[in-house]
């Protein structure tokens, strides 16, 4: 299989997945359909990639991928853990410091709440999505560093 045929196949699979997704949403089908479709699609892409005859990846592109993934992980785990610790703190009721000394008499002392636990979950999901953009950013950076957009002299 040629490289371009492979990319065309990936595009078609993405379109089919999108169609299944919207069909599932519109007809209120159980999420099992799109989940299994996604797993099958990844399997097909994996098998098709093995059959590509002209080269797609060499040691330089492998290094770019490796570096981008490593940097993404390094940045991500710090942010994710910080947010998660905040979420746990929130759920365990933030320790109350003796704020009554600093507040007006008879003023109600309310517990501190940064975000409700449900919102923390959404924030973590958002962070997971953000990881994709972070990875793309690092990939562009390393691709540039290792000469992906160098001008040809030939």
């Amino acid at each position, binding site marked *: 299989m040629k490289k371009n045929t492979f990319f065309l196949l990936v595009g078609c699979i993405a379109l089919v997945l999108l169609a299944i997704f919207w069909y599932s949403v519109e007809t209120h089908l159980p999420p099992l359909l799109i989940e299994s479709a996604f797993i099958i699609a990844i399997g097909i892409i994996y098998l098709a990639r093995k059959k590509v005859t002209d*080269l797609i990846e*060499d*040691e*330089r*592109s492998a*290094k770019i991928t490796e570096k981008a993934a490593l940097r993404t992980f390094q940045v991500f785990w710090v942010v994710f853990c910080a947010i998660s610790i905040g979420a746990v703190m929130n759920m365990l009721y933030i320790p109350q410091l003796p704020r009554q000394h600093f507040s007006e008499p008879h003023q109600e002392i309310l517990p501190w709440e940064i975000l409700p636990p449900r919102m923390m979950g959404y924030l973590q999901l958002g962070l997971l999505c953000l990881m994709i953009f972070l990875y793309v950013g690092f990939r562009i950076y390393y691709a540039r*560093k*290792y*000469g*992906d957009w*160098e001008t*040809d002299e*030939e």
Partner: protein
Amino acid sequence: MKNKIKVFRAMHDLTQEDLAKVVGVTRQTILAIEKGKYVPSLDLAFKIARHFKVNIEEVFMYSEEGRTIDVD
């Protein structure tokens, strides 16, 4: 790390694409190596040198000058 790939290519009348095919990488990788943007692995360096039928030191020159540890 400096290299003379471009010189050897000219001597053997090879394009970047030809050399890339022979050593099993993309043309962009050969271009990046020639421009000094990417340091090849030992395996690839040996393949390139072997293709030109010379020792690896004749194609790749290691210099302490300007040597930096690649941390990022």
